[in-house]
């Protein structure tokens, strides 16, 4: 891991200077704030749009609806942003020649790769914290307070799922010189995982399987089994990093 510290510092500075970090934080904050709002006012919006032409009977929204809306939005917008962050991380550096510039310095290729994924994970982490804080606060204002500890744990699981999507795209970015091809792999993996998530016995152990325990934790429900999907997601991310390294260490720049 020679050079990891200096590389991570550069990656984090790049996230900031290229405005990726502020932009992602703003998008996640909007997701966080809008989710409880949508949950709270969707019945009234539908009523206003429908007028007296047809009657829609919707149950009174609850804090659980606010969380579900947040989880859905993070699962879609968040995953898309994870793919966008990871798609060019290695491919663009190879294409532009900056990877060659760095890798003739005393830097191991493992450090080069891991610093990049760590910076993406950090950006997603900061953004998830901001989104979670915004959503928790608006849920408090519009509904009722959710358990703080459980909600933080839920946001951790959501973040882990996003890092898994980023790691899949990251492998694509390492294997190719095209950010678009990497994004294609990320989106394809997102769809495949979505399909596999409905397979009984399999879905629980995929990153998509983190949704159920995250919900239970956020709402303070009694039965939570998060360890299985957590372990497989962490294992998946670790495995993807190893695959990236095995491919990248043999590549000419």
């Amino acid at each position, binding site marked *: 891991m020679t050079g990891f510290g200096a590389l991570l510092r550069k990656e984090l500075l790049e996230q900031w200077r290229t405005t990726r970090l502020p932009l992602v934080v703003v998008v996640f904050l909007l997701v966080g704030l809008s989710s409880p709002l949508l949950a709270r006012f969707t019945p009234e919006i539908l009523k206003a749009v429908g007028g007296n032409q047809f009657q829609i009977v919707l149950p009174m929204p609850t804090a659980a609806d606010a969380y579900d809306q947040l989880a859905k939005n993070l699962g879609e917008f968040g995953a898309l942003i994870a793919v966008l962050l990871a798609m060019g991380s290695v491919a663009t550096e190879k294409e532009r020649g900056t990877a060659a*510039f760095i890798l003739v310095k005393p830097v191991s290729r493992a450090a080069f790769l891991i610093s990049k994924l760590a910076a993406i994970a950090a950006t997603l982490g900061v953004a998830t914290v901001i989104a979670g804080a915004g959503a928790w606060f608006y849920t408090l204002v519009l509904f009722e307070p959710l358990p703080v500890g459980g909600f933080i744990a839920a946001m951790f699981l959501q973040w882990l799922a996003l890092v898994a999507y980023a790691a899949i795209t990251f492998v694509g970015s390492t294997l190719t010189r095209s950010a678009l091809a990497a994004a294609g792999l990320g989106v394809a993996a997102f769809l495949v995982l979505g399909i596999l998530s409905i397979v009984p016995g399999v879905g629980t152990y995929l990153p998509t399987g983190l949704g159920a325990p995250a919900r239970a934790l956020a709402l303070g429900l009694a039965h939570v089994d998060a360890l299985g999907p957590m372990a497989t997601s962490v294992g998946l991310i670790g495995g993807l990093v190893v695959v990236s390294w095995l491919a990248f*260490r043999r590549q000419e720049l």
Partner: protein
Amino acid sequence: MTAPTPGAVAIEAKGLTKQFGSILALDRLELTVPAGSIFGLLGPNGAGKTTTIRILAGLAQASSGSATVAGIKVGLDVPELHRHVGYLDQDPRFYSWMTGRDLLAFVGRLHGLDGQELRARVTEMLERTGLGAAAERRIGGYSGGMRQRLGIAQAILQRPTILFLDEPVSSLDPEGRRDLLELITSLRGEATVVVSTHVLSDVERICDRVAILDRGRLVTEGPLQELLDAHARPIYRLAPGPGQDARQSDLIAALRAARWVTTASVSAGTITVTVSDPAAAADEILPLVVAAGVTLDAFERARPTLEEVFLELVGPTAPDDLDGRGFVRPREATRQ
């Protein structure tokens, strides 16, 4: 940077071969670069200069053969190698969002520098490469020449024992080129410098050893002066005084008939004679002038140039040998 040990070997390549599909970019290259030398790697476009440097710098992998740089076996993921090596690409690319100072500080940190030492080294490099005034500007706004200077600064920042420069003056203006050549010359004795270029006058100015590559093969290698002495044929320039047209014609005819003359031509009143046998020419050229009754205003035995050596060894490139990019077509592996 520790001073190179006299007589030590900085770089050694044994049977270095690089194949891209059926194309043989480098063909069993044998190369020894003494420590402390400024070593010119010459050849036409497509000769294998950049491939050689990329393999030695650990950016590309040889198909076969091996090489050591600073005693370390080269390979793709060898951080230890890069503690000793500085490298400048022919088209250096950096992060456009960084300033020049940011980039050098980043490179310094990668080499383990920090604190006051890092700041001092960065400032020194910025001044040494004439980028002090542009240090706080984003690299995205730098000209090609400024990027090249920044490339030099980052390559020598950690005071490497071995420095690879791939076409370092390609995008510099005359002043920048002069400054860079002076900078390279100033590294003599401090580092081993390998410079690839096809600007032969630059090589003559700064290099003490050269290797000439052609289509992936080493044509020759050795000390510059030995190479000039061994390969270059002297050129004689004779300037007859005015009003001797008939005698001058006789002299040219006599020169062309001599077995040691390759060519004899007249241009702007000066007779230029290229020779195949320098010893015979030295003995016989003036007696021929005297025999023709020609009086001379000037007589010169011109110093042989590296360009002549290069053309003698590599020869002019035929249009059929060039690909669409102006590169010499490489050898095909099956034809070796």
